[in-house]
């Protein structure tokens, strides 16, 4: 359900950068650690985009693998299940190298054909 709010956030971000031009494509990076259901986000995106500069735009989602790092022993690892303790030294001082993203990476916009006088 929160994909509805998340899709609005994506559309607002895209429109902000579109400079009044029609958006045809939104490239989104979604970290594995975010609880985003891609199909659900796409469904709401299409719906919420209607009537905005993103109307009819395609949403491309790239899932970013979750990678963690241990500050105590410098181990870096990727996770499938959410375990945030270092598997090597058991330390808890762990940082997220990637996987938290919910980021509009780029958009594609339509430019009017150049009609400069010769």
């Amino acid at each position, binding site marked *: 359900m929160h994909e509805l709010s998340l899709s609005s956030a994506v559309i607002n*971000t895209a429109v902000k950068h579109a400079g009044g031009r029609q958006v045809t494509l939104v490239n989104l990076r979604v970290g594995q650690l975010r609880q985003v259901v891609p199909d659900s986000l796409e469904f709401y995106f299409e719906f919420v985009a209607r009537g905005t500069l993103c109307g009819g735009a395609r949403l491309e989602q790239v899932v970013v693998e979750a990678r963690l790092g241990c500050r105590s022993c410098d181990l870096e690892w990727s996770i499938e299940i959410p375990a945030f303790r270092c598997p090597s030294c058991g330390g808890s001082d762990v940082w997220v190298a990637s996987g938290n993203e919910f980021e509009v990476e780029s958009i594609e916009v339509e430019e009017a054909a150049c009609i400069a006088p010769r």
Partner: protein
Amino acid sequence: MHRTKVTVVEEALDANNTIATANRADFDRAGVSVINLMSAPGAGKTSLLERTVGSLLDVRVGVLEGDVQGSMDADRLASLHIPVTQLNTAPAFGGECHLDANMVRTALPSLPLDDIDLLIIENVGNLVCPAEFRVGEDARAMICSVTEGEDKPLKYPLMFRTCDVVVINKLDLLPHLEFDLDRLLYNVDQVHPDVPTLLLSARTGEGVEGFRDWLAEVALRTPAVV
């Protein structure tokens, strides 16, 4: 017509976070500490507040009660003679399943910030969505009740990871359940290593002083310099 690629690289939730920061600045100016209290529906948020806020000495508490609709919880808390403000997400906010920074911002004018030291925002019951949206809080607490299953931290990691304290409620029901408390605590620690946990029963009152003390501790924190 031709198409141009525009590089953006911007967190889509930046707009929410910006409003959350503005809320936080307003709370700090008023000298009010803010707690975002979250859980699944029926885990005992309102019951725990009923048990604890009345016995907080020297801390004036107010509650912002977030619900999709209705004021049942707000009515229960109002009987404690504390200021309670109801914030419904239906219909003004499309019946959203969580509070976001903007909803809390719209409620600011109706909050008695000059008369309270601690604002507890009781979020909409939900383990997924509230975790995504900062509202301007100083601290986050969540309640996980023992009727929910030991695997909940692994299923809803974002909620467990972003909380400053995890309350385990309904301990009084343990004799009636096949529930592995150690397994739950292990899973909590896997998802959020070293997060403080408070074991209690809002119904019997066992252990609730731990949560009351935590509320008092957050209330007494000096606001961050803005």
